[in-house]
C-alpha cells in the first residue's frame, strides 16, 4: 500500500478513491474526444449524402494498401498496449518496457506511412481545399494524426518513468489510462479507414 500512498496526491485522499476517480476522469475525457471527432463524422455524412459521385470518384485516388497496412499496424499497437497493461498488473516491469517500446514503434511506423502517403497525395495535386472530399480526408486523418503524436509523447513519458521503478502491480494507473487513450486512437482509425478508403 505504501507505493500507492506515495502517489496519492498531496491532498491526502484514499488511494482507492483516487484510482477510481482517475479512471472515471479518463472516460469523461474520451467522451469529449468522441464529440470532437463527431463533428467531422457529421460533416462526412452530410457531404457524402450531398455529393455521392465526388466521394466515389475521389476515394479511388486514395492508397488502399497503405491504409490497410496502417490499420493492421494500429491494431497490433493496441494489442501490445493491452499486453503492457496486463504485464504491469502482474508486476512484470521488463515486459511493460518491452510492450511500451513496441507500441511506440508501431506508432512511429504508422506516422512514417502517413508521411509517404500524404507526400504522394500532394504530388498528385491533392491538398486540403482541393475538394470537399479531400478536405474531409486531410482534416479527419490530420486530426487523428495529431492524436497519434500526442499519444506517442505520452507513451514515451510512460516508458521513461517505467525505468525508474515508478510502476508496479500496486500502482499502474497512468499506464492503464494511457492504454485507454491509445485504444481510442486506434478505434477512431478503424472507423476512418473504411469510411474514407473503402466505401464507394
Amino acid at each position, binding site marked *: 500500500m505504501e507505493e500507492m500512498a506515495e502517489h496519492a496526491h498531496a491532498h491526502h*485522499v484514499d488511494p482507492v478513491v483516487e484510482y477510481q476517480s482517475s479512471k472515471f476522469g479518463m472516460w*469523461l475525457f474520451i467522451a469529449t474526444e468522441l464529440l*470532437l471527432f463527431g463533428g467531422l463524422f457529421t460533416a462526412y455524412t452530410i*457531404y457524402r449524402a450531398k455529393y455521392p459521385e465526388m466521394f466515389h470518384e475521389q476515394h479511388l485516388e486514395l492508397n488502399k494498401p497503405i491504409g490497410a497496412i496502417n490499420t493492421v499496424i494500429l491494431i497490433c499497437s493496441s494489442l501490445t498496449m493491452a499486453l503492457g497493461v496486463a504485464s504491469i498488473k502482474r508486476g512484470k516491469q521488463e515486459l511493460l518496457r518491452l510492450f511500451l517500446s513496441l507500441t511506440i514503434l508501431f506508432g512511429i511506423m504508422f506516422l512514417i506511412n502517413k508521411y509517404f502517403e500524404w507526400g504522394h497525395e500532394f504530388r498528385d495535386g491533392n491538398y486540403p*481545399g482541393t475538394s*470537399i472530399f479531400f478536405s474531409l480526408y486531410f482534416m479527419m486523418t490530420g486530426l487523428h494524426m495529431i492524436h497519434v503524436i500526442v499519444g506517442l509523447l505520452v507513451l514515451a513519458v510512460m516508458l521513461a518513468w517505467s525505468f525508474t521503478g515508478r510502476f508496479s502491480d500496486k500502482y499502474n494507473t497512468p499506464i492503464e489510462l494511457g492504454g485507454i487513450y491509445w485504444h481510442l486512437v486506434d478505434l477512431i482509425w478503424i472507423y476512418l479507414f473504411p469510411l474514407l478508403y473503402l466505401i464507394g
Partner: protein
Amino acid sequence: MANHTLAEAIQIPYLEEKGLISWITSTDHKRISILYLLSISTFFVVGGIAALLVRLELLTPGKTIVDAHTYNTLFTFHGTVMVFLFIVPGIAASFGNFLIPLMIGARDVAFPRLNLLSWYLYIAGAIIIVASLLQPADTGWTFYTPYSIRTGTDVILLTFGIFVAGFSSILTGLNFIVTIQKLRAPGMTWHRLPLFIWASYATAILQVLATPVIGISLLLLIAERVFGIGFFDPAKGGDPVLFQHFFWFYSHPAVYIMILPAMGIISEVIPVFSRKPIFGYKAMAYSLLAIAFISFLVWAHHMFTNGISQLAAMIFSFLTFLVAIPTAIKVFNWTATMYRGSIDLKSPMLYALSFIFLFAIGGLTGVFLAALAVDVHIHDTYFVVAHMHYVMIGGTVMGFLAALHFWYPKMTGKMFNEKVAKVAWAFIFIGFNVTFFPQFILGTEGMPRRYYDYLPKYQPLHELSTIGSWILAIGLFLMAINLIRGLLNGEKAPENPYGSLSLEWQVPSPPPHENFEEIPTVTDWTYGYGKKQ
C-alpha cells in the same frame, strides 16, 4: 504548499502564504478560485468597457465616436470576451471551485493539478484573444460563414484563443463531475447535497459534452481560412447553414452553462436569508438536470429565419417551449421558499431577489422568441439583444454578485460595508433596466441588431439605453470599490455571520488548506432551517 502534512496544512488559512509564485503554482482549489475570480473580473471590465464604447457610439445616429468598421470590431470583441472569458467560466470556475469541495465535505477537487492547468489554459486563451486586437475581427462572436472566411481581419487568433480557453472549460467540468461523484463525505447522499452542487453537476456535464463541438467548429473555421477546405463556403460547394448548426450545437447549451450555476446560487441564498428550507428540493434538483438535458435539443431556435425547413422549425420551437417548464417551476419554488420565512434583506438577498425578478423577464421574453410567427418579426432585432442581456446580466451577473456578497466573509475573512453595498445594488438594478428594457421596444419596432447606424426615429430609445449604461457602470464601480475597501480595512468576519447550515460555513473564515480537520459525517440535508430537533 506541496509538502505539508495534514496536521500542518489544517492550521494554515489558505490566504496566508504570500508571494505571486505561491499563488500561481498552488493546487488548493480555494486559491485557484481566487485566481479565476480576479481573472474573470478583469475580463468583465475589459468586455464592459467595449460595451460602454458600443453604447456611446449608439448615442446618436451616424458617426458618434468611431467608424463602422471599428464599431463592428468593438461588438465582436465585447461578445467574445464576455462570453468566453467572463460568463462561461463565470460562477463555475470561481465559486464552483471554492465551494464544491467545502459543500460536499472534501479536502479538494478530484484532480487538483488539472485544476491549476485549467486556469493556465484559461490565461493562455485570454492572451491569444487579446493578441487578436492587433487586427481585431469584425465577424460578431458568432463567426457566421462565409463572411468570417472572407474578412481580412484576424479571425484565426481570436478563434484559436477561444479554442484554447475551451479546454479550460472542459477540464473544469471533468474535474467537477468526478469530484461530486466520488469525493462526497460519508452520509452526503445525492438527496442531501446543496442545490448549488446539483447545479454545478448539471453545468459540468454540459461543459464536457458541448464544448468539444465548438472546438471542432472553430478548428474547421481556421482550416477554412488557411486551407480553404470548403465545408462552410458556398463558393466551394459548402453550406454556411452547416456552420450555424455546428456553432449553435455548443452555443445553446453554453447559455445553460451560463445560467445553471447562478440558479444554484439563488437556491443557496434564498433559504439562508428566509430561514426556510428550499421549497420543493427534489423538483429543484431534477429541474436542473431536465434543463441541462433539453438544452441539447433546441439549438436551431437561433436559426428560424436562416434557411431551415418548416418541419425543423416546428420541432425546435416545440422543444424550446419544453425547456420553459422546468425553468418556470424554479421561479415559483424560489418565491414559495420565502412564505412565512424570516426575511433579511441584506445585499446577497437583494441580488438574489433581483435575479428572480429580472430572470423572469428574460425567460418570459424567451417565450416570444420561441413562438415561430413572432420570432420571424423579432429575430435579429434588439429584442433578442434585450432578452439575452436580461438572462445574462439580470440572471447570471445578479447570481454572481449575490454569490460575491454572500461568500465574501468566508472567502476573505472580512466584512464589507452593507449600506454602500445596498446603494451600489440600487444603481446596478436601475441602470440595468434603463439600459435594456428600452431595447425590447426598439426590437419590436424593427431596429435590427449589430447596426452601427440607425434611422433617426430610433434615437430616443437608444439615448435612454446609453444613459442607462452609465448608471449601470457607476453602480458596478461603486460595488467594486466597496468590496476592495472591505478587503483592506473591513471588520474581521465571524465563522457564520448569516446563520447558514451548509458545510462551508462550519469551518473558519477564511478556511484553511485541506478544509476540514476531520472529514464530517453528514446526517441531514443543508436546508434544515426551522426544523424541530
